[in-house]
């Protein structure tokens, strides 16, 4: 009898934490992203003005799952192909310019998905819908190919999260060699969560901030479409929801999130261009500090509640 009870205890399904995150956040998030990308691809137009609202809707939808770089997002380099940024060497622009003037056969769906990850996805569409300078050829075929490819990838992601989500939900059960315990599933999600906050602080805010002597406003994410700050705000909100799905009782983490989101909401600077001005720069720096404080609070509170730590070796470095 005791053995039976023990066996039952050991095979208890994944706790609410992972289940909440998968059922309430991740799967619906990918489904909405796929829907938005499909709507964008379905528009029969190459007029930037006609496409921009759907482009923004797809970008917004991506931000609710863009911090997830595990499972289906890693397969086929999808995460990179959906959002290749930062791109300090301008690889995306170079690859796109070759596609604009090259053999149109490369724009066929099968061929296009073999193209450089830098030439695909949301930043690639942004360069076509908000060109910084006149494009060397008619962008219409490339816009259509890029939007169709994005739609395909997001569809693949949404369906692959069925079986991959099941792996998280059955962590520790016999035969599941992806997640050997429920704690490993929680740790995987927490790692993505913490990495998401790090990305906001180090890249979304840190790259344009540069240094005081050398601010780099031109490095802000999605500057052409004036989404730089919006991306920060939406990803903070998405990460807040993920944290609360993983554990609803995290008052300190919630407070630091609210502080950071309030700072972002009051920052009237869509492209973060203010980083070049000492007065307004300070506001971006304070927001960056608030994001880092949120990560620290979550490591202290949420990770403890989940019984996980950031990796034993990954944090060591040697």
């Amino acid at each position, binding site marked *: 009898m005791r053995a039976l009870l023990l066996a039952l205890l050991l095979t208890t399904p994944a706790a609410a934490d992972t289940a909440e995150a998968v059922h309430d956040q991740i799967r619906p998030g990918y489904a909405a992203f796929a829907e938005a990308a499909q709507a964008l691809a379905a528009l029969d137009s190459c007029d930037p003005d006609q496409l921009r609202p759907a482009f923004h809707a797809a970008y917004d939808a991506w931000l609710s799952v863009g911090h997830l770089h595990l499972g289906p997002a890693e397969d*086929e380099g999808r995460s990179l192909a959906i959002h290749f940024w930062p791109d300090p060497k301008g690889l995306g622009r170079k690859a796109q310019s070759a596609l604009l003037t090259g053999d149109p056969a490369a724009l066929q769906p099968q061929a296009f998905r073999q193209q450089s990850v830098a030439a695909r996805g949301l930043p690639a569409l942004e360069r076509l819908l908000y060109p910084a300078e006149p494009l060397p050829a008619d962008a219409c075929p490339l816009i259509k190919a890029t939007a169709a490819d994005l739609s395909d990838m997001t569809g693949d992601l949404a369906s692959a999260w069925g079986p991959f989500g099941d792996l998280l939900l059955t962590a520790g059960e016999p035969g599941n060699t992806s997640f050997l315990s429920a704690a490993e599933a929680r740790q995987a999600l927490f790692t993505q969560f913490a990495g998401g906050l790090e990305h906001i602080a180090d890249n979304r805010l840190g790259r344009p901030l540069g240094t005081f002597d050398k601010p780099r406003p031109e490095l802000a994410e999605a500057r052409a479409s004036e989404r730089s700050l919006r991306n920060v705000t939406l990803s903070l909100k998405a990460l807040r929801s993920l944290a609360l799905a993983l554990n609803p009782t995290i008052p300190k983490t919630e407070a630091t999130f609210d502080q950071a989101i309030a700072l972002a909401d009051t920052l009237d600077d869509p492209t973060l261009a203010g980083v070049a001005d000492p007065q307004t720069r300070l506001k971006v720096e304070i927001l960056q500090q608030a994001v880092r404080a949120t990560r620290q609070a979550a490591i202290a509170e949420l990770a403890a509640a989940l019984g996980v730590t950031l*990796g034993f*070796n990954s944090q060591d470095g040697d």
Partner: protein
Amino acid sequence: MQRRAFLGTLAAALAPKLGWADVGSPAFFAAGKQGEAFFLHGLSATGGSLFQVPLPGRGHAAAAHPTRPEAVAFARRPGTFALVINCLTGKIAHRLTPPEGMQFNGHGTFSLDGGLLMTSEVIAETSEGRIGLWDTQRYTRLTDWPSHGIGPHEIKRLPDGRLAVANGGIRTDPVDRTKLNIPDMRPNLTLLAEDGAPLDQIELPDLRQNSIRHLALSGDAIAFAMQWEGDQAEPVPQLGLWTPGSAPILCEPSAKDAFAMQGYAGSVAATLSRILITSPKGGAAMLFDGSGKALATHRRADLCGAATTPAGFVLTDGNGAIWTADDAGLTPLATGTAQWDNHLVALT
């Protein structure tokens, strides 16, 4: 002669010569953490712990004596201890401390005949590299050689006795490991003769911020694994192959996995036909063929330790699992003994 010392000598002379078979022929060594305590484990080919010895702090890598059942456990960098462990008794036979002003740097190796232990070291103030030499009869310090670079990390003995040294190039604060020279670091890979004389050296002029840190042997080639200190948004290779006498080859990951390692390789292991690097930061292992072509990427959180057996690759992770790895994927071998530290060392 003191009576006790005389008896000791006598006992040693009379005792049958004991070898690795007498401790269950461990296939690997790995340091790990259990609760708040640290241990060095001798592991069987199937990943079971044959014996464990407590360590005073977090371990890093180990080296096994070629014949005697003796292993040396190295502290993580900057290292104040290396322990020579008698694997028969589980007792610490010798505690090695680096000379005043020097620090161990995490790795070491034995000479071919086992007569010498070589340890990777730095002068604490400057991070200038040294190779410490120890006589393994009583583990007395003999001398040290220059490593011909800054911040040496892994050192690897070639089958002919030459020594490959990964000079990581990073000057660090002697106390807190803060990196002090990232903008102008210059890592190199140095080959030393059996007597410590420098034979050859390579640098990567276009990738000076790629710290060369870990080594494995694939036939005549030295596989070297790197850690990128430059802009994390730049895709750079984490693996190179160098056959002394020719130019090094850089092994690019496939484009879709360009950032899978997050610029960081934690360990490298190699057979004649395959080279494998791990990244605990990226949660991935990447396989290459003998010419350096990327073949596959497998995902697993906090993977770091990597070693080879005649059957292929074995990997360890910080969640306590041990895996075999091949082109097709990872297969669990054992779980639950300890959170495994950075390195898995095969007894060869």
